[in-house]
């Protein structure tokens, strides 16, 4: 099952990457970034479920002291939080940009050139 989940993750990531690099509408770019975040989340959760640390079942190992190993899932929650913050910041930037340049076309903005 890990392979299928990883394929899903890669497909999602690539769709997101394509969207980031090719869409001209700035909202679409932000949405594509969300896709890439979630591709990463899928990978994290999948690894957390299927990849077991080598010493987990060993005598005196981690399994004897901990009932659940939920490191991957925890990390995924952090990513979601960070993504939410990023969207809030990104939308704020979009609004500021809209007020300033009256366009949502990302190629029309080249302020970084200066």
């Amino acid at each position: 099952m890990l392979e299928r989940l990883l394929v899903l993750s890669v497909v999602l990531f690539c769709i997101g990457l394509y969207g980031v690099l090719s869409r001209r509408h700035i909202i679409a770019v932000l949405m594509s970034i969300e896709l890439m975040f979630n591709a990463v989340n899928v990978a994290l959760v999948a690894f957390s479920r299927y990849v077991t640390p080598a010493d987990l079942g060993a005598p005196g190992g981690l399994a004897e002291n901990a009932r659940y190993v939920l490191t991957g899932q925890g990390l995924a929650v952090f990513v979601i939080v960070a993504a939410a913050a990023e969207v809030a910041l990104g939308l704020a930037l979009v609004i500021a940009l809209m007020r300033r340049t009256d366009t949502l076309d990302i190629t029309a903005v080249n302020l970084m050139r200066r």
Partner: protein
Amino acid sequence: MISEAAVWGIIALPLAAGVLAALALLPALRPLARASGYVAILGVAGAFALSLAALDATLGPDAAAGFGVRSWLTVGDPSSAGGFEVTVGLLLDPLSAVMVTVVSGVSMLVMIFSLGYMRKEPGAEGGAWADYPRYFTYMSWFTAAMLGLVLAYNLIQLFVFWELVGLFSYLLIGFWYHRPAAAAAAKKAFIVTRIGDFGFMLALLYLYLHRAEFLAQGLNPFEIPDILAAAPLLSAGVATWVALGILAGAMGKSAQFPLNTWLPDAMEGPTPVSSLIHAATMVAAGVFLVARMFPLFEESAVALNAVAIVGGTTAVLAAAMAVVANDIKRVLAFSTVSQLGYMFLALGVGAWQIAIFHLLTHAFFKCLLFLAAGSVHHSVHTFDMRYMGGLRRWMPVTYVATLIGALSLVGIAPLAGFWSKDEVLAAAWAADGAGDVGVSRLVLVLGMAAVFMTAFYAFRLVLMTFHGRFRGGIDAVPTDELIPDEVSLVGHVHRAESPWVMLLPMAVLALLAVVAGVALNAVGALGPLPAHGLTHFLGGVASDFDPAIAGVSTVLALAGIGLAVAAHRRGVLALTDLPRPWSVLHRFLAGRLYMDHLYETLIVRRVLYRGLFFATDWADRRLVDGTVDLVGWVGRNGGRAVAQLQTGQVQVYGVGVFMGVIVMLMLFMFQR
């Protein structure tokens, strides 16, 4: 015995006198200008007295050679091959003692003569003594430099004084610097001698590169006694190259062919300067240097042959050019070059003591002839012999002096020139030096030919100047031949003998020109005088008087005199309107073999300007500048190209980041 301080005084006294004389250049001390002459003469007289004491010290059985040698410049560890040491010191041996005596003595006489000669007309600008301070300063410093050269213990020390001599000769030749001809002559003398000095510098460099051979024996590669001690132990190539380099320097200073072109032009200086520098001292420096380094030359037959051939060629060519010259000082200048050729000839056949002997007698009679020429100029205000004639009627003393000088120059027994010239030719005949016998025979023939020509031009000078009818002096010179600036320097003809300050030095020199040969180096013991005194004093082996050589040279000399007298009787001594083959030769010689033309047109203009300098100019503009420009072009245009990548488009940046990640991933994957 003599103290070291006294020997340093030989150099220091003229130097200090020059400083004092220069003080009169200050506007406040201008009224004392006349005293600067006496100060300078006192300084040189002091040096002369000390020189006599030094000469006396070297006559003793415990003849001290050198004094304490002081370190001047030390680089690294002098005892290892990585470093070297330059020392300063005094080398007082018979050779240098004789030389300082002659240099300071002749210099003193010339300065006394200059008191009269350098005095201007009373109404001249700045007063009658306006030229005194500058002139006597240069003369004192020149004398000091020459004395320092002679006494140097170290070749680098010698080279420093060598160049100082060159500098002061430049200043003295160009003394009347407002005359373009004098300025050009000074520059020419400086540059041409510099070509020879370059060879000298290469010799010093070569010694430095081979210093390991000296250090292995605990010797210093620059100290003269050490070089002479090491000479027999050096590998043959080293001795040859060093000797040839030194010869190049000596050829420049002594105006030997083909570096002889500067000396005739150098007659643009005041006549006493010509007398001192270009007859008695400076040009003798080259002969002195070769004599000083002679053990080194003795190790190399190639170098000795080169010295002999250079000397023989110069003796003949310069004598031939003297035959056709009309300027009395030019005749004497070519004569000097020719006589220096004799000295080199003597050096080349291995008889350096004889070369020094000839140097001494030549210093006396040539200095005398130059002073006489100055005295003549003082009366007729021109140097052109075509406008002289008949001067013996009101210049009897100058006439007798010139006659004595000429007879000595020609080599008529028993005058000084006879004995020295005869010994030079006898040494060439004996050919017992390290050079080839064939070369000795060749230069003997050249020397004999020069004897004939010398006799002709010397009596051509005497007859054109003092005999016949007076042809008008400066007043008869066509106006278009006068240099405008020169008119202010000269006055008008006054038919009178020169003042006694000018005649006294001439009388002393005339006496020396008569007796010096017998007194210094008689062929047989004569009362208190030992036989071959100078040769033995300088450590040489004297050869017996050779009646055959003396007879042949005397016959040739008399033939030359006879030819001159015969030409004078027929009135063709000016050598104008010669028949066909002779006129071509005359033009060739009067054009000085077209050597100036060759140097100026071919070497300087063609080879240097259009060849070498053009090529280096091209390389500088295209290669050097081009490389620098290319670096700038790459920076500017490369930066502009890279700047195009900065679009400000966030998605383009994203592509770049993504590509970079892929590249890093691929590197990471293919690494293992």
